[in-house]
């Protein structure tokens, strides 16, 4: 099955449905090891000023196999549409493609998106030919709007970034999955493997996470757990689960019981 089950994003096929961030790791080698264990083929990065006084020798991208991995730059830290647009343009100019994880933050305590600014920035970036993956809250209406604008996917949050609360509102995620014709990627808030399994069982196409792996006591082991959790949830979704019932049904037949 997994042979057949391809995740297509922005016209490109992927085998893995887990997208991972590269923040908060001890060092670049741990980052690379975690990515490898996670099986991720798409990896998010942030765009930041070079430190002029000490540009440093080591560079994150040197640790990633760019022949195998798609780089997804984000606009993290941007609080206005124009900042996000400016950041996206710089990212593209650096020559790693037109994909961008659009984040326009509305509040620093929740890091929830600024919905109108996200829509505005998405419109501009789509017109400029970007493949826009917007981080957005779990609002079906906003997700539909972003899809109509031409975003390559919608990325509703499960819970606040880094909170580890898991899917706070499966109902909204379910509605977004049912209405969307572009991929639905749950982004942010995941805490552990069962959260990603649940996301995939709800019918999401992929999951994006960072802190849940980087912040675990053993990041490499958690990376593996997340890879397996995504596969488990995807297969369970495709396999078609049994219905829920209040009462029991025996799994062993009654005929032939000793009298």
């Amino acid at each position, binding site marked *: 099955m997994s042979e057949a089950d391809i995740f297509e994003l922005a016209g490109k096929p992927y085998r893995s449905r887990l997208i991972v*961030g*590269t*923040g*908060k*790791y001890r060092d*670049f080698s741990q*980052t690379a090891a975690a990515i490898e264990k996670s099986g991720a083929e798409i990896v*998010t*990065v*942030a*765009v*930041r*000023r*070079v*430190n*002029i006084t000490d*540009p440093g020798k080591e*560079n*994150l*991208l040197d640790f990633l196999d760019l022949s195998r991995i798609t*780089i997804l*730059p*984000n606009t*993290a830290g941007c609080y206005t549409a124009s900042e996000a647009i*400016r950041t996206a*343009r*710089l*990212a593209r*100019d*650096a*020559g*790693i493609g037109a994909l961008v994880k659009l984040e326009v933050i509305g509040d620093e305590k929740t890091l929830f998106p600024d919905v109108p600014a996200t829509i505005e920035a998405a419109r501009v970036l789509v017109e400029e030919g970007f493949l826009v993956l917007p981080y957005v809250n779990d609002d079906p209406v906003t997700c539909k709007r972003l899809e109509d604008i031409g975003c390559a996917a919608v990325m509703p949050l499960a819970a606040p*970034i880094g909170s580890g609360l898991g899917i706070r509102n499966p109902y909204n995620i379910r509605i977004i999955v049912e209405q969307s014709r572009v991929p639905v990627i749950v982004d*942010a808030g995941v805490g552990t493997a069962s959260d990603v399994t649940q996301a995939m069982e709800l019918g999401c196409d992929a999951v994006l*996470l*960072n*802190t849940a792996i980087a912040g675990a006591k053993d990041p490499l082991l958690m990376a593996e757990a997340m890879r397996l959790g995504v596969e488990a949830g995807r297969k369970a979704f495709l396999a078609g689960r049994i219905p829920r019932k209040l009462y029991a049904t025996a799994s062993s037949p009654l005929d032939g019981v000793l009298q």
Partner: protein
Amino acid sequence: MRVTLNGEAHDLREGITVSDLLAELGLVQRRIAVELNRAILPREDYPQRALRDGDVVEIVHFIGGG
């Protein structure tokens, strides 16, 4: 000549080009992008574009993020 580099004022010699600057900073081989006075500076312009007094330059690269 004073140029603002990534938010801080720097004294640079007259006529230094963006390529020169990147070379001095050891960023030639790096995956970076350059913004000059709020507009993206295309790679092909790096060699000829000489910096002028008052220019505002941003040089960015990719770091770990989620």
